[in-house]
């Protein structure tokens, strides 16, 4: 069980779930959650390659960067969604189409 394939498999499932969420959900917050899943699947990959691929601590450092970046991204994205909600009384991203011709 303790092998690279297992981690990559879990990471792939997480990525697919995240991608599915991003593509199919109409709720903006749910889309953000999908993005969070994709980022974390990438983190699993980094750690797994660090553990089995001989990358030493570089993988851990990258994962830390990704967590920090994800936090920043979540802050900005949530702020946008709150603003959308304030203006449109909805978080459905299909209805946020005022810039469309």
């Amino acid at each position, binding site marked *: 069980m303790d092998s690279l394939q297992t981690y990559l498999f879990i990471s792939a499932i997480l990525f697919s779930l995240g991608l599915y969420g*991003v*593509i*199919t959900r109409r709720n903006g917050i749910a*889309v953000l959650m999908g993005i969070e899943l994709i980022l974390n699947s990438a983190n699993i990959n980094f750690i797994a390659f660090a553990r089995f691929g001989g990358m030493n601590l570089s993988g851990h450092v990258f994962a830390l960067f990704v967590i920090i970046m994800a936090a920043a991204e979540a802050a900005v994205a949530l702020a946008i969604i709150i603003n959308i909600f304030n203006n449109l009384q909805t978080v459905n*991203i299909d209805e946020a*189409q005022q810039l*469309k011709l």
Partner: protein
Amino acid sequence: MTGDMLINYALGILFLPLLSFIILILVGKRLPRQGDWVAIGSVLITLILSLAMFGSMLLSHDPGFSHEASIEWMDLGAFRIELGFLIDNITIVMLLVVALISTMTHVFSIKYMAGDIRYSRYYAYLGLFTFSMNGIVLANNLFSLYIFWELVGVSSYLLIGHWFEKDSAADAGKKAFLTNRVGDIGFFIGVMLIFTALGTFNYGEIFQGVAQGDMAGTLLTLAGIGLFMGAIGKSSQFPLHIWLPDAMEGPTPVSALMHAATMVAAGVFLTVRLFPIFTPEALLFIAYVGGFTAIFAATIAITQNDIKKVLAYSTVSQLGYMILAVGTGAYIAGFFHLVTHAMFKACLFYGSGSVIHAMHHALHNKHDHDTDPQDMRNMGGFKSKMPVTYWTMVVAALAISGVPLFSGFLSKDAILAGTLAFGTHHPQHFLLPIFGFGAALITAFYMFRLIFMTFHNEPKLPELYDDINESPKEMTFPLVLLSTLSVFIFYTLPYFNPLSDHGWFMELVKAKDSMVPGNPSAHEIAEGIHHSHTLTMILSTLVAALGIFLSWSVYLKKRISADAWAEKLTPYYNLSLNKYFFDENYDKYLYQPLLRLADRISFIDWDLYDKYFINGFGHVTKWLSFLTGRTDYDGLDQTIVDGLGRSMSKAGSTLKEVQTGRLQNYMLFALFGVVIIVIFQSF
């Protein structure tokens, strides 16, 4: 006076009248008195300058004087054209004649033309004429001469047609212009023949070339006859004499200036200038044309009833005299007659103008607009009413008849002597002296017929008689001056012999030798004239006396009935009265066939060539362009050009459906793309 000063004077003489023309044509109507003072002032200065030149000629007394100056107008390699002046004694005398008659005409016209609707334009045209006439006189080459030659034609046309509201005046102007064109074609051919052969237009160089034999024989004869054709047209010689009598439609002062004294003399002046290059054959042709014209026109003048027509035919006849003189070699006599004739003929015309003016006023007072004021049959008895006009006209008539003591006697005598000498040397040409003396007889007859019919006898229209008055001073002054100048003394000074033409004129204006081999020298001609002088004098005096006597018995004493003779000679009378039917025959045999020919040609041109050939081309082109239009528009434009655009727009509108604006869709497409790449990679 130095030559350069003469040139400056000549420039003034030439350009002052042009200046007056320009001023009057531009602003004439707005000037006080419609600007006649501009014209009169300029022509008066011209007269003063001419008098100064004349005085210096008399003082220096140099028969061979000649001064030339020219500027280059264009230089086209082999073709060099100059404009220039040639001032010799002939020029100076002629300039004085032109300036004098022109001044008199300007003065005479003040009253004659008073109240005319185109008064200022009339004076403007007189200025243009004086300019062009002086140009002819001053020219030192055939090219400048030709320019001014045509310019006098234009001013003649404009002045004949001055009263163009009258159809007859407009037609007469056109007739004069077109008839002159016929002669000018010959003139142009002559000029070009000379230029081709000798490569120059300059008189002096032409004479030199002819003297060296660079141009001789038939070619020179042809060139001479060509140049003479210009003179035939301008000086109204047979067979182009038809325009001058019609030109009398112009105002009478114009008739006096142009159609009697100066412009028509331009042809004579030309032959005098170019005398040294005429070959014997050309001179013979000239002599016969002149001699025939002299007697032919005189026979027409006998029967005319219009006072101006009589004078017009008399002018044609006298011009024939001058031409005859040139043809027989006595060309200085011809030039002399030109000068004396200018004086007395202008005087006669002013006299007729004065009479017409009086008649016109009398008729105007009676509100009679149907009676012809120029018809001598309506006149008679004016002698006591218009004494100044009468006496001046009598003097001029005596002069033109060649009565001793008057200028005409001297010049006519010289011509007749030349003709007689020529006839004695060449007995086969006996007709020439007969033409000369015959014309002299008839001239005396018809001139006194005019005087008697106008001034003597009972008034034909008594109701007008009381209204006939002498003309104002502006009109009688030229009459008096010119009749005075018809006395012999002004031409024979410093001598007082009325029977000999010996005087300043003959001393200063000397004949040049002909440059053509075979022609008699000036000396030989002078000898011939000298020998036949006495006989001529007796004959011509007898002839003049006979003419006057006949006229006196027919028209004053009525001893011979003119009507009875007209009855007896009906066919001849009718011929003369109708001017030998020249206009009718020209119309029938020349104009009408030409018009018909033009009609035919225009049929070919318009109905055949234009209609089928030119229009056919048009049809074919139209059809072709229709076809290419179809191919271009329906074929290319609709399918390829528009089709491409349409297919693009269709593709665009189809593809735009993909652009939903939804990020999730794009992501899905990206996912599909990745999946496809992965699938492709794995194979």
